[in-house]
């Protein structure tokens, strides 16, 4: 979504620290890391930490339970449990390390090779991995221990070898995804060799899943290691091991149940810590790829109270329309100050009309629509304003009464129709469910009206489409299906966010024609969000131009093309290649849309405006009425456009 553009405002170092920062925000992760660090350090420094020799027997004091001498008590031979745990941890953690190292050493390179090379290498490695995964690990390790008695290193290496295919598969699928990224193709065309590309472009991108797998495998390896130690298959019986201690405790469970507590708890906590760590890293990595910045950009803009005019489309003061948006503001919730991304936006939609909201990415047009529908993504919230549906405030009504309105009065279609369809069900069954939800009719009736709806959106073979799944539809068909879904509740208003942007121009023309026909037949109003002036010219009655979170101009459709009254609108229209001389330089607007949080204080367009004066950068600019049904947020409108308005 466009609002992600505000990442540009972040400091360079912030992002690299984000993963650690996010891990730090999760108390569980901090606890897990701390716990593992303490256990590891204690085991490494066992010589200094352990109060007793782990083999020192004191037959006077056996099975004591916790005392001041032995804080965790003693075992059947009077050995100090605390010291044995610490020394035993050395073996256990070393085993985990061995297992993880083998898994990574095998899984990562071969996974990379399979995913990157593809073709027969991939098929061969994948088949091989699947075969190994079918082999029962425990039995193979038992065989190894039979050949090499008490050799725990061999056991763990074998275990690692058998665990490697799982990592191989994870790395392979992560690599496959990265391989499709264009920068890999770009790297090839740059003349880079394959090993270079893998090392520098692929590997850094697959580390996330690898770390997760490694920590989960560590948990599994520890469980396994203590298991075979418990069975007494590895170390010398006298030598301390965690598994062995559990085994010993289990023999005296009737006499001293306490003995099971220290070793059991430690094993459980360590395994838990590995698991928690894996989960936390995965969560942090996912947010890192798609989330909002956790830190607010430094400069948050000045938003003083401003003199504003209502849009002025109903001079008699009465409102007979459907939707009235008043001073709607949306902000990004962040740890420091909230960053506004839509500010005091107002517009009206009358019954049956088509309003175009036009602007570039980062203008806040999509967010405005989502706020009206109360569908703001996580991290964004409505910071102020009202949205009236007839005379009810949508933003303050309860979730349940709004749910009744959504779908039946207001409907929504997005730029990516495929995403809104459930891939697991046929189009028909989803549509039937929707119709039954809205109208409470029988399944049979719903099924026939589903086919009617699909016919209504001009799908040439409705029966086939009803039986199809989302992935079988082309982009144009999927958008028609999405429109059919939206029509299921017979809405009075359809909000369409870039409904044709992803489509071919011929399909776009068809969809626009369809929307126009449906409006004519049902009297439905349409709010169309787009960046395409051709689409605006084609279907809209009025246009609302947005820039940097504000409405900068509203106007009837012919006027805005003939006599734009804001320098931004003018700049956009003259940048259109179809209006320019071929091969001439286009008149472009310098610079780029400022990101939320770095909006200029006064006129937000002033840094890019060729008409800007002193006044434009010092005073707050209101949206003022500049003609019947027209408003512009430009204080120089009279001077700049005088020739135009006069004529």
């Amino acid at each position, binding site marked *: 979504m466009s609002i992600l553009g505000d990442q540009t405002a972040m400091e360079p170092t912030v992002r690299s620290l984000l993963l650690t920062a996010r891990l730090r925000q999760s108390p569980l992760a901090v606890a897990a890391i701390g716990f593992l660090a303490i256990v590891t350090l204690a085991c490494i420094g066992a010589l200094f930490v352990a109060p007793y020799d782990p083999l020192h027997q004191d037959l006077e004091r056996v099975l004591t339970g916790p005392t001041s001498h032995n804080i965790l008590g003693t075992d059947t031979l009077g050995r100090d449990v605390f010291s044995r745990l610490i020394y035993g941890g050395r073996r256990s953690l070393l085993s985990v390390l061995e297992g993880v190292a083998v898994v990574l050493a095998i899984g990562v390179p071969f996974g990379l090779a399979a995913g990157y090379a593809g073709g027969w290498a991939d098929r061969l490695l994948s088949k091989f991995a699947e075969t190994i995964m079918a082999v029962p690990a425990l039995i193979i390790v038992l065989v190894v221990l039979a050949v090499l008695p008490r050799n725990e290193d061999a056991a763990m290496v074998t275990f690692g070898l058998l665990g490697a295919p799982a990592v191989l598969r994870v790395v392979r699928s992560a690599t496959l995804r990265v391989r499709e990224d264009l920068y890999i193709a770009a790297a090839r065309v740059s003349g880079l060799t394959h090993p270079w590309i893998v090392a520098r472009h692929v590997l850094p991108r697959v580390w996330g899943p690898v770390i997760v797998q490694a920590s989960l495998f560590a948990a599994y390896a520890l469980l396994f290691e203590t298991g075979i130690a418990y069975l007494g298959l590895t170390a010398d019986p006298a030598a301390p091991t965690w598994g062995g201690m559990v085994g010993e405790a289990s023999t005296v469970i009737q006499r001293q149940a306490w003995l099971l507590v220290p070793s059991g708890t430690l094993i459980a906590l360590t395994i838990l810590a590995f698991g928690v760590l894996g989960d936390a890293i995965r969560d942090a990595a996912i947010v890192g790829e798609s989330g909002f910045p956790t830190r607010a950009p430094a400069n948050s803009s000045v938003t003083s109270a401003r003199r504003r005019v209502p849009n002025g489309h109903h001079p008699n003061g009465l409102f007979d329309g459907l939707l009235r948006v008043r001073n709607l503001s949306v902000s990004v919730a962040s740890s420091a100050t909230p960053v506004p991304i839509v500010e005091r936006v107002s517009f009206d939609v009358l019954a049956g009309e088509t309003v175009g909201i036009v602007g570039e990415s*980062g203008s806040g047009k999509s967010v405005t629509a989502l706020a009206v529908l109360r569908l703001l993504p996580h991290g964004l919230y409505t910071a102020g304003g009202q949205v009236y549906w007839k005379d009810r405030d949508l933003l303050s009504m309860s979730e349940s009464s709004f749910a009744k309105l959504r779908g039946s009065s207001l409907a929504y279609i997005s730029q990516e129709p495929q995403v809104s369809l459930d891939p697991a069900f046929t189009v028909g069954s989803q549509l039937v469910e929707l119709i039954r939800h809205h109208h409470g009719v029988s399944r049979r009736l719903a099924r026939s009206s589903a086919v009617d709806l699909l016919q209504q959106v001009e799908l040439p073979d409705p029966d086939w489409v009803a039986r199809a799944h989302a992935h079988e539809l082309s982009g144009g068909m999927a958008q028609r299906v999405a429109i059919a879904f939206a029509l299921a509740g017979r809405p009075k208003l359809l909000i369409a966010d870039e409904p044709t942007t992803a489509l071919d121009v011929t399909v776009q023309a068809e969809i626009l024609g369809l929307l126009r026909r449906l409006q004519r037949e049902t009297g439905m109003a349409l709010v169309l969000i787009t960046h395409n002036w051709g689409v605006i010219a084609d279907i809209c009655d009025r246009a609302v131009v947005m820039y940097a979170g504000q409405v900068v101009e509203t106007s009837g459709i012919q006027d805005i093309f003939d006599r734009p009254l804001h320098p931004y609108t003018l700049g956009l229209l003259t940048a259109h290649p179809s209006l320019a001389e071929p091969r001439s330089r286009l*008149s472009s607007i310098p610079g780029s849309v400022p990101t939320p949080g770095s909006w200029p204080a006064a006129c937000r367009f002033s840094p890019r405006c060729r008409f800007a004066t002193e006044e434009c950068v010092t005073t707050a600019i209101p949206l003022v009425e500049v003609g019947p049904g027209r408003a512009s947020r430009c204080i120089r409108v009279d001077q700049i456009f005088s020739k135009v308005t006069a004529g």
Partner: protein
Amino acid sequence: MTQQIPLLAVRQLSVQYKRGKRIVKALDDVSFEVLAGETLGLVGESGSGKSTAAKAILGLTQVNSGSVLFAGTDITHLPFKQRRETYREMQIVFQDPYSSLNPARTIGSTLSEPLKAFGERDSEAVRDRVRDMLERVHLPSGAADRYPWQFSGGQRQRIAIARALMLSPRLVILDEAVSSLDLSIQAQVLNLLQELQETSALSYLFISHDLGVVRHMCDRVVVLYRGRVMESGPALSVSGRGSAHPYTYTLNEAVPVPNPNAQRARRAAVRMLLTPLPGGTTKIRDEQCVFAPRCPWNQPKCWNERPSLRPAYPNGVVACHRYPEWRDEIAGPPPLDAHVIPATEHARPEFPRNK
């Protein structure tokens, strides 16, 4: 034009993919040339094969038959080492400025990679080249130390262009290079591309679905549909209303023009042109016109015989059995059109002079 060896020549190129048991002809007997210093447009909708053509030229996909010649040398099937050498001469800029830059590398590292890959060891020289190139694409030299996510879409596309130019190639393939950019940014990047072409004697293969942009940028245009060439010729002929192929005509008419009155008039014409395809996938036979199922002017011959390319207008060819008759059958008076009216006469917005 007659004696000059074309910089890039694509001759009867065919690329096929297997989709399960079906064979999809992504490119079917496609030929075109890019001359030194010119911009050739490759236009078509999704599935037309235009991006496959780019991949085939760069050796990123297998070619089934036909050949690709660069400056007279056959480069269709090259072993990796020689293929690599061609990348000094030929580069590409992709559509998506978000996935075409490695998010984990600084801009400087991304830009210096091509030089290092071709053995440049002098890190001072590399740094100078990077700084020069950033300047040429109008980015601050400090950009080298920053990461892709710190740049807007338009800036990233400049970076991608800079990377393509690092090796001073003679041909740059622009694969929908401005399609994902906002209008004001698109204009900036188009201007930059023209500027770079003038200063560096570059040739462009400009791949796009947007006829408006293609008309603005290109000298000549090739129109692809379902892997076949429908029409090719000078940009103004192909992308104007004088187009010789019904598909080109449809494409032209389907683009909504930013003028409500003109657009209202066009709509009627567009409506009759658009016959939605039947559901599922239609089987296209080799011995038919691929556009016949969508063509309002089709006749039995169109379903039974593959039209070959034949001369249509000066320097233009068309693959249509019904040319020129179909043009006479266009119903009604010709609607107003932004493409043919010279920009000066067009009802463009008033341009207030600067203060």
